[in-house]
């Protein structure tokens, strides 16, 4: 058991289309409303109906960092939910199941709550409502207040008015069933905070947090093409952008999406798109266009698993190389990797700051798990870093011999906007001179390549003073380290807590800007290390390869060994996997 006592992992399994995700999602919201912290995980097949789906909600009385390895409570809507999950259950686990759909062998030693959910729902003439019967039972077991439970369901299901009454009846029946049949306290019930003292927090998915971050940053234009798991970003902005005077276009494809945002940004707007691997691959040519014409754009890549269409609804970190290096001719870009839902919000603000200030495309890397999960986060509008804006030409600059691509010390030149008199220039995809006109001269080409590259070095210096360009946890003098990126942070931090309890000291670092890399923080991290583990959700250990390559001199000098833990299964790390890999690394290094 890796769960701490203050958290409970509830897993709901069932057939896709049966409302499994719906009740998992509503349960998370009820728990949050009751004042608990929430962290959810969902996995589903790419078909709309059919196929096994799973929703895992981990709830707790303190901040929850990962979805948890094993279920404390399993709600089984069908037989497969039981057969698939029973080896993840331990003797302490509790099973809540629909007796009309699941047969549990008598040999099962855990606590069971058999509930004739289908029968109860059918008696109400609403067989489809069996999921709500189970939800009612579950919320009752956790002592969640009925009125509050009902209020959350009403709010979440308000768009399905025709079925709301029936679902509420099913919910009530499930709630009462527990009250009538089970009076003993539920093993996993958590102490609930006093409603008056609950700290103000929001419950939001990673995708929604990114959309909010974009609005906070002043994004005014979005163009995108639907793709799982990035679509919710577009759908959230579609709803709100017009209220901010912004425009959202559903483009005909991803090539159009990126070219449109380049156009809008050229015309003066803060502009973005969001996509996943297949769409990002299509955008690569125009990413270079934004690089050479120095147009600020923000792209979100919500990674999904596998090459080509791969596993559209599963998580991965397999696009790091594509994001860092994809494209011809050394096109400049920045890459940011948030590591929590809260971070998704702030990363978007930072991304727009960097894009606008440096007139360079910025890519924010998220993934399916982080985009689709719900997390509670404190709502605080205080920004982590200053908001930076585009450098516009001064009147003097416009009055005489304006040079759009002037080779300056920091690489940043002022950007005139169409409509400004005196600022006329050509945004040119061919190599160009300082005015923007095509110029093939070898010396000019080299000069302009350097000019654009200089911005990365300027950014590296500026980012040194920024909060969260690299996060470190644990003790600095630890001989063993973990280097990770993105959404694996929760599992890693929990693993570190467990290891610490066993007396094993490790330090972890999570660079948040992967381009430019926070060199200073990385080199300081390496100082006391003997070996480091690099856990990643991809096949070829992309971060490990990149870090080894970038810091090979320091690593060689300090004689630091690299251990990789590459997992490409479409699902996140378990805490135990990280613990085991750290223990194995230490054993190998210490030669025992």
């Amino acid at each position, binding site marked *: 058991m890796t769960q701490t006592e203050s958290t409970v992992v509830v897993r709901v399994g069932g057939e896709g289309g049966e409302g499994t995700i719906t009740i998992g999602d509503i349960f998370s919201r009820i728990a949050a409303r009751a004042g608990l912290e929430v962290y959810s995980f969902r996995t589903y097949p790419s078909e709309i109906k059919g196929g096994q789906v799973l929703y895992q909600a981990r709830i707790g009385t303190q901040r929850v960092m990962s979805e948890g390895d094993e279920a404390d409570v399993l709600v089984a809507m069908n037989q497969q939910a039981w057969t698939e999950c029973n080896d993840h259950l331990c003797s302490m686990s509790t099973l809540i199941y629909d007796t009309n759909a699941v047969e549990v062998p008598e040999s099962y030693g855990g606590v069971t709550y058999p509930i004739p959910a289908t029968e109860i729902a059918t008696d109400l003439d609403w067989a489809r409502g069996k999921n709500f019967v189970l939800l009612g039972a579950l919320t009752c077991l956790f002592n969640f207040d009925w009125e509050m439970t009902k209020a959350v369901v009403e709010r979440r299901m308000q768009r399905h008015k025709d079925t709301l009454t029936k679902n509420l009846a099913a919910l009530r029946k499930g709630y009462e069933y527990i009250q009538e049949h089970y009076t003993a306290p539920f093993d996993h019930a958590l102490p609930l905070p006093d409603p008056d003292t609950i700290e103000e927090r929001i419950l939001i998915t990673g995708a929604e947090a990114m959309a909010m971050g974009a609005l906070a940053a002043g994004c005014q234009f979005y163009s995108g093409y639907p793709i799982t798991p990035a679509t919710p970003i577009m759908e959230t902005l579609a709803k709100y952008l017009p209220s901010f005077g912004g425009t959202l276009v559903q483009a005909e494809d991803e090539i159009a999406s990126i*070219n449109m945002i*380049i*156009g809008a940004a050229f015309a003066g707007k803060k502009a973005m798109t969001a996509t996943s691997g297949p769409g990002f691959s299509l955008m690569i040519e125009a990413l270079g266009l934004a690089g050479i014409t120095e147009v600020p754009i923000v792209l979100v890549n919500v990674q999904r698993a596998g090459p080509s269409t791969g596993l559209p609804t599963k998580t991965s970190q397999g696009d790091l190389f594509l994001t860092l290096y994809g494209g011809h001719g050394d096109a400049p870009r920045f890459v940011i990797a948030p590591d929590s839902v809260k971070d998704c919000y702030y990363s978007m603000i930072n991304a727009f700051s960097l894009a606008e200030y440096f007139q360079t495309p910025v890519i924010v890397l998220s993934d399916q798990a982080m985009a689709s999960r719900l997390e509670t986060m404190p709502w605080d509008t205080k920004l982590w870093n200053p908001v930076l804006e585009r450098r516009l030409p001064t009147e003097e600059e416009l009055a005489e011999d304006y040079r759009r691509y002037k080779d300056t010390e920091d690489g940043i030149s002022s950007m005139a906007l169409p*409509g400004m008199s005196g600022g006329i220039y050509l945004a040119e995809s061919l190599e160009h001179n300082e005015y923007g*006109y095509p110029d093939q001269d070898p010396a000019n080409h080299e000069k302009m390549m350097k000019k654009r590259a200089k911005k990365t070095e300027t950014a590296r210096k500026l980012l040194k003073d920024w909060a969260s360009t690299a996060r470190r946890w644990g003790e600095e003098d630890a001989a063993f380290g973990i280097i990770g990126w993105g959404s694996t942070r929760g599992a890693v931090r929990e693993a570190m807590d467990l290891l610490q309890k066993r007396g094993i000291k490790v330090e972890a670092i999570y660079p948040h800007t992967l381009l430019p890399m926070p060199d200073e923080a990385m080199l300081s991290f390496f100082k006391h290390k003997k070996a480091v583990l690099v856990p990643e959700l991809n096949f070829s250990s992309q971060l490990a390869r990149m870090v080894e390559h970038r810091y090979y001199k320091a690593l060689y000098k300090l004689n630091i060994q690299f251990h990789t833990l590459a997992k490409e299964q479409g699902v996140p790390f378990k805490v135990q996997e990280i613990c085991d890999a750290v223990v194995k690394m230490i054993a190998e290094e210490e030669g025992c």
Partner: protein
Amino acid sequence: MGQLKAKDYKSGVKPIWCPGCGDYAVLNALTKAFAGLEIPHEEIVVASGIGCSSRFPAFIKTYGFHGVHGRPLPLATGIKLGNPDLTVVAVGGDGDGFSIGGGHMPHAARRNIDITYIVMDNSIYGMTKGQPSPTSPTGMHRKAAPYGTQETPLNPIMMALSYNASFVARCFSNKLKEMTDIIMQAIQHPGFAFIQVLSPCITFNDTYAHYREITQLIPEDHDTSDLAAALQLALVTDTQYLGVFYHDKERLGYCERVRMVQEAAPKMSLDAIIENYKR
């Protein structure tokens, strides 16, 4: 500001085009149209793709964007939506617009985005030195088609009409005055205006004589609001009609629709939105 002349809109950069290339006429017509409409230089953006014809923005004294191959329409759409006060013209070639970028025109038409799109159609890939293009005739022999092309050519006017573009016209580089007049109408049209210019590539596909022979002005009694009549004219290919085939003056432009959505949207602050996410 005195009377603006076409030459005031030329950048002074010498075009890379071969002497006699049909694209010179388009440059002259467009600059004349800008001068005629007295649009301030800085309020114009000319966006293009890649090809000989797409080198256009460098030769003109307005804001310009020379993008990537096939994408002038999404680029220009973004520019116009980014600042609806601008006059935005997208230009490119037949390969750029009907081959690699062929997927964008139906959507520009469907949105009725307020831009003018001029395709300099020479029925050849000029820049890459003479490969057949989507409008090349069947049986055309070139290095890349040593046994003659096997495809039938696209009919760009038919395409634009079937996409229901709200302004559809054809011009010929040899008829500068008519072209200037049509470009002026197109720029003033609040919606998507498509112009196919028969613009011969003197080096790889010299069609001047051929077009002089087979082009003819659209009969004066043609009703430009009649889509079926426009399609009838477009179907004729032995004669290539010149002029405005179709002009829908009723349809709202995309910028107007976007503005209406923005106006109708409830005014909200980020804090108000966040309220929805409070537990």
